[in-house]
């Protein structure tokens, strides 16, 4: 059935306001997708920053843990028939445990040797990613279901519910981490070690136990990020390297050891990418990431909220 014709003045009014509506929707779209893109980046980086901020350990296996967590969840669901929630929880716990034992089994012997720590964790990443590739976990068939299917219309812009949940989960994680570091004994010990390791030891805090816990938590957070972001696309082994790159980029911009820095860095990077893709060309999104790293390293080497370089220079 054809819709009834609008009276002339209504039709004219709609035509007159159409460009303005399109502009407004375009702006809303930039804000919504800028936020979702930024929170995705924050989720990718937050675990890396947590571990580095507390123990000074650069966990270059972060991206591999993100990937492994996603694949384990897929295997638990599709091969063992476990429910999604159980599979997800199991993966978070297993990868957390893997991070914990990675510290005791390998990183403990390398503490203080920065280059060796990087090489060791990078080697772990390569082993995990390449073994997964060898086992055939590539080919786009490995997909995690979204928590909730469907889209919502916000201010004339359609957004999938999974992306909105992603923003909620990202915000919740930041709040929980804030409360954890300021309201719990373990959180206090994390902050103490981060601020001054020698003084912390003097008051009875075990630095190795704290570092192992931070690596476990950072690894578990990598899986949480994976479980939230992966349903938006598919799981592929190449992602192991990409996620590490994003985590590093966000960390370098915001400050590698700072969680607020990671959040700030991800918003700068996330919005830059969306704005560049909207007003210039999408292929320059990667250039923005790399240019931001170079710029920040040149102007403020510790990152916007980082303190490492400044402390070194003061000493």
């Amino acid at each position, binding site marked *: 059935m054809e819709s009834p014709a609008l009276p002339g003045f209504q039709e004219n009014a709609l035509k007159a306001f159409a460009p303005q509506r399109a502009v407004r929707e375009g702006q809303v779209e930039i804000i919504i997708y800028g936020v979702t893109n930024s929170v995705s980046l924050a989720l990718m980086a937050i675990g890396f920053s947590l571990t580095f901020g507390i123990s000074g350990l650069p966990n270059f296996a972060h991206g591999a843990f993100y990937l492994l967590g996603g694949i384990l969840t897929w295997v638990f669901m599709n091969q063992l028939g476990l429910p999604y929630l159980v599979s997800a929880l199991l993966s978070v716990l297993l990868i957390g445990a893997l991070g914990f034992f990675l510290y005791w089994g390998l990183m403990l012997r390398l503490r203080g040797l920065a280059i060796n720590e990087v090489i060791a964790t990078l080697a772990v990443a390569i082993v995990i990613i390449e073994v997964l590739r060898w086992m055939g976990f590539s*080919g786009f068939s490995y997909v995690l279901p979204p928590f909730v299917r469907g889209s919502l219309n916000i201010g004339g812009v359609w957004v999938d519910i999974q992306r909105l949940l992603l923003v909620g989960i990202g915000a919740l994680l930041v709040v929980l981490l804030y409360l954890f570091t300021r309201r719990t004994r373990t959180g206090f010990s994390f902050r103490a070690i981060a601020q001054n390791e020698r003084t912390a030891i003097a008051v009875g805090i075990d630095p190795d136990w704290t570092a192992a816990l931070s690596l476990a938590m950072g690894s578990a957070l990598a899986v949480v990020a994976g479980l939230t972001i992966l349903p938006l696309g598919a799981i592929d082994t190449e992602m192991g390297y990409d996620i590490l790159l994003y985590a590093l980029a966000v960390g370098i911009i915001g400050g590698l050891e700072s969680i607020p820095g990671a959040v700030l860095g991800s918003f700068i990077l996330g919005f830059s990418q969306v704005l560049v893709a909207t007003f210039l060309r999408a292929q320059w999104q990667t250039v923005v990431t790399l240019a931001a790293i170079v710029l920040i390293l040149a102007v403020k080497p510790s990152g916007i909220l980082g303190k490492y370089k400044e402390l070194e220079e003061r000493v």
Partner: protein
Amino acid sequence: MKRGSWLRIAVGVVSLFFWLGIPVHAAEKPIVLGMPTSFFQPLCKSSKLAIEMAIEEINAQGGILVKEEGVKRPLKLVTADTRCGEPGTPVQSALMAVDKLIAEEKPDAIVVAPFRSEAMVATMDLIAKYKMVTLQSIAQTPKLIEIFKGDPEKYKYWFRATTNSVYVGTAAAKTMDLARVLFKHNKLFIIAQDTLWARAAADAAKAKLEGFGWTTVGYEPVAVGTNDFSAILSKARSSGAQMLYVVGDMPTLPVCFKQWKSMRIPTMLFLDFAVVTSAKAWKSYGEDLDYVMVMPFPGGTGAPVKALPKSIEFHKKWQEKKYPDMDDPRTVSSAYDAIYILKDAIERAGFVPSKDPDKFVGFLEATDLEGVSGRIKFDKSSHQQIFDGDPKESSVIVSYQWRAGKMVPIYPENVAEAKLELAPWVK
């Protein structure tokens, strides 16, 4: 009975069989088929299964009758991993794998051949050097035809028993053009992965569609690893595009079609992305694929088509074998057909390709049999399998539209089982 007597009886029985012309299957030397390709790639793994399926079928009937030898000889497959589908593998490594296979296994013919076009281009000289009859069925570059035409006498042992990128580009453009014919759409927006092959495919489709009367209102190359397509899709929306052509093979590409649907982008979507062209894709992505147009290359390789009876048989046999669903079905049916092309030519020639490759080439050129994608014939001037619009006259490329979990053939017209439908949010 004495041992000597048993021996005499056995020799007598075998002689009698020979005299009567009855093949003694178990004793016959197999016809060896070499398959040097990159087994890291899902497409190559599935191609191997397809070849094994054809070989089992033929061997179950006693093998291929080689008239000059008066026997039926079974087929045997030997493989070599060229690794050319793995990142960073140099062409030289692939060539060495092919050379080693030919030198050590002495195959009677080669099937499938290297995965990457670059490696296949380099393999052409090896094929010529060893006079190795080759039914190549993956690499799509038109460069191979150029090489062949540069010296047909030297390269005559090479046949492409599948599509090539020119056929594929043309068929993709004609499929998208259905929207102009049916709905008067004429505005095209392209999202191409920023790699040479994807940009080339996009450029080819753009040129073809503009020739059909389309206007390109946007062309966005995207960097490998792009994981949010919202800004580009918004551009597509605001440009007034009616057809979105997305081409690439990067791991984050599923994000693009999922966002196309979740953002209700008011365009049709033609996705040039191998992994969404088989039944398995629906298991992975479900309703996110609804209304997406896809094109696995040779007709019937991705899903059965009623107008191609062999494609129905092929998929039925695949299921009966309980083979895993294909991740990437492009050209898998061509690998299967290649074995039957060889069987047909050997039976007509009466000898195996390695016995007299120069003479055997003529029998391959005269191929005319029904395969999964229609009637198989080769163009003598290019040794390219002919693909056109009528499966009774040639092979065909078929495009599909995903609808409620099924790949429905929509192109070409004479094999289509339904007309292209607009997604509900597209006007």
